[in-house]
C-alpha cells in the first residue's frame, strides 16, 4: 500500500510540474505584459511596476522563482487586485465553491444512482423510458442554459428562490441543481446499464435459487456490484463539477473560486490564472487518487499490493 501511494505521489508531482511549466510559458506567450490592457500608464511607472514584479528578469529566472514560491504555497500577488495575494484569493473564495460543489456531487450521486436503479428494475417498461428520456435531456441541456431557465422560472417569475448570491442555504439550491444535472444524467445511464448487466448475471440466479428475497437480492448482490463503474466515474464527476462551476458561479454571482478564475481570465491577471490552474490541478489529481483508493477497497478483486490466492 505504501509503495503504491509513493508511486502515485511521484506521478502527481511530475504532472504538477508539467502543468505549472506549461501554464507559465503559456502566459509568457500572450502579447503585451500584464499591464497592457489597463488605461495607458506613463512609461516610467509601467517600467517601475515591471521591475517591482520581477518581470524584467530573464524568463528562466522568473520560472525557477515561481516554482520555488509555488511549492511553498505562495503564488504571488494579484496583478489586478492591488494588495491581494493569489493564495489569499484562493483561501477566500474556495469555501464557497467547495460547499456548492459538495451539494452538487451529492445530488448527482443520490438522484443519479436512484434513477439508474429504477430504470433497470423497470427495464423496457414505462419507468425505464421516462428515466432515460430525462437522462438524455439532462445530457443535452448545457448547465448554463439550465441555470438561466431555472433563474427565470423560479427566481424571477415564481419568486420562490433567490436569484443570486450566497447568503443562505436556499441560495445554493438553484446553482446546485444546474451544476448537478448533466453529471446526474451520466450517472443514471451508467448505473442503469451496469445494473441491467448485473441483474442478468449468474450470481443473481444463485442468490434467488437460495431463496433470498428479491429485494435483498437487488440490494445486497445487485447494487453492490453495479455501483462499481459509478465509483470509477467519481473522478470525471469532480472534473465536471469543477469546470461547470466557472459559469454557474458567474450566472448566480457566487463569489467562488470558479468565478475568480473567470474574472482573472477576463482581466488577464496572470498570477491568478496560474495560481488557480495549479490549485485546480492539485485538487483533481488528489481526487483521482482518493477515488482509486476507494475503488480498491470496495472491489476485492483489485488488490493494491497483495498477491492473489488460489490453490486447486
Amino acid at each position, binding site marked *: 500500500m505504501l509503495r503504491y501511494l509513493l508511486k502515485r505521489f511521484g506521478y502527481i508531482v511530475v504532472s504538477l510540474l508539467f502543468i505549472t511549466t506549461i501554464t507559465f510559458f503559456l502566459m509568457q506567450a500572450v502579447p503585451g505584459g500584464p499591464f497592457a490592457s489597463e488605461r495607458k500608464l506613463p512609461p516610467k511607472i509601467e517600467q517601475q511596476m515591471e521591475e517591482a514584479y520581477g518581470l524584467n528578469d530573464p524568463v528562466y529566472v522568473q520560472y525557477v522563482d515561481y516554482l520555488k514560491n509555488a511549492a511553498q504555497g505562495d503564488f504571488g500577488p494579484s496583478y489586478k487586485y492591488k494588495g491581494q495575494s493569489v493564495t489569499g484569493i484562493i483561501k477566500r473564495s474556495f469555501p464557497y465553491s467547495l460547499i456548492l460543489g459538495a451539494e452538487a456531487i451529492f445530488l448527482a450521486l443520490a438522484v443519479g444512482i436512484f434513477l439508474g436503479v429504477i430504470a433497470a428494475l423497470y427495464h423496457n417498461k414505462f419507468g425505464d423510458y421516462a428515466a432515460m428520456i430525462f437522462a438524455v435531456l439532462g445530457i443535452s441541456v448545457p448547465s448554463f442554459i439550465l441555470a438561466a431557465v431555472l433563474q427565470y422560472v423560479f427566481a424571477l417569475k415564481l419568486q420562490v428562490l433567490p436569484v443570486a448570491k450566497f447568503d443562505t442555504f436556499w441560495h445554493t439550491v438553484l446553482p446546485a441543481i444546474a451544476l448537478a444535472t448533466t453529471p446526474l444524467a451520466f450517472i443514471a445511464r451508467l448505473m442503469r446499464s451496469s445494473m441491467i448487466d448485473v441483474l442478468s448475471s449468474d*450470481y443473481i440466479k444463485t442468490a434467488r435459487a437460495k431463496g*433470498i428475497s428479491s429485494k435483498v437480492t437487488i440490494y445486497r448482490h445487485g447494487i453492490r456490484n453495479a455501483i*462499481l463503474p459509478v465509483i470509477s466515474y467519481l473522478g470525471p464527476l469532480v472534473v465536471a463539477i469543477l469546470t461547470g462551476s466557472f459559469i454557474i458561479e458567474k450566472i448566480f454571482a457566487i463569489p467562488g473560486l470558479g468565478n475568480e478564475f473567470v474574472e482573472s481570465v477576463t482581466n488577464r491577471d496572470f498570477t491568478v490564472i496560474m495560481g488557480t490552474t495549479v490549485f485546480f490541478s492539485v485538487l483533481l489529481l488528489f481526487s483521482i487518487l482518493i477515488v482509486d483508493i476507494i475503488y480498491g477497497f470496495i472491489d*476485492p*478483486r483489485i488488490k493494491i499490493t497483495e498477491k492473489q490466492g*488460489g*490453490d*486447486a
Partner: protein
Amino acid sequence: MAKKVLEVKNLSVSFHTFGGEVQAVRDVNFDVHERETLAIVGESGSGKSVTVQSVMQLIDMPPGEFKSGEVLLEGEDLIQKTAKQMEGIRGKEMGMIFQDPMTSLNPTMKIGRQITEGLIKHQGLSKTEAKKRGIDLLKLVGIPNPERRIDQYPHEFSGGMRQRAIIAIALSCNPRMLIADEPTTALDVTIQAQILDLLRDIQEETNTAIVLITHDLGVVANAASRVAVMYGGKIVETGTVDEIFYDAKHPYTWGLLGSMPKLHAETEELHSIPGTPPDLKDPPKGCPFAARCPYAMKVCENNMPDYTENSPTHKAACWLQDERAPKVEPPEDVLAGGAKQS
C-alpha cells in the same frame, strides 16, 4: 420403494417473445426419488434448463408462462405457491447449482457470507453459529483450510474449488432435492470426476434426490441411476442407466449414444446427428425428431407418438414401437455397453 421427492406432471412452459410464443417445455412428465440421481440429457435448446428452472420457479413470468401442469415436491404443488412461499422453499427444501462456477458467485462478497446468507434466512441461525456451520460445510465438500477460506473472496478460489463452494451453499440447509444444471461442463476432466464423486458421497450420506442436467453421456454413465432424454421440449425416452445404454429404443437416443467417442469402437468415424433442433415458435405437430430421424415414417410427421412401456421403468415415445411399424435395429456400435466402461 424409496419415497418420491419430486413429481412433475404434464408441465408445459412457454415464452412470449417478439417473434411469437416459444413452446420451450411441452407436456413433460418425470419423477425423482430419494437417494436417486436422475439425469436429464439433451442438446442445447431441448428445454432441459427451462424445465428445471420452472421447477424452482426461477423463470420470470412474463415473459414466461405456465401453460399447464403440476410440480409436486413431496406432494405439494409448487405452482400454486406464492412468490414469498417459494422464497422459503428455495434454498431450504430444494437447492440448485449452475453451470459456470466462475460467474455463479458474487465477486464482491466473501464466500462465508454467501454460505451463511441462506443459513441465517432459512434456519434462523446467528452469525457465529452460521459461520461455524459454514466451515463444517466447506470441510464436507473437501476444501482444505476451511477456517481461512471462509473469509476469502471467490477470485481467490480455483474453478474446481468454486464449484465445491457452490455445492456447499446449495446443501447448506439440507434440502431434500438438489438440481445440478451442467455442473461439470465448465471444468477440467479430472476435476469433473472429483465433483461427481463428491455429489455421490453426499447423496449417500444425506439421501438427497439429485436431478443432473448434462449433454455428456460420460457424466450420465458415471453419476446417474436413471435417465430422461429430452428433445424439442419433450421427453422422448426414460429409463434406468442400464436400460438406456444397453437397450435404448428411441432413434434420438441412438444418435446420442452413437456420437460418443468410444475406446473400443471399430469404426473410425464419429457419428453425428445432422440437422438442427426444431423451431419451438412453430413446433412440428408430430414427433419433434422426425425431420432429422433416419427411420421416420409418414405417421411421424403429423402424429405425436404415445409412450410405450418396455418395462416398469423404461418408456419411449416413438412410432417404431408400434406393432404396425417395421422392425428396426439400432445401428451397429451404438449400444453394446461400450459406453459404460469409458
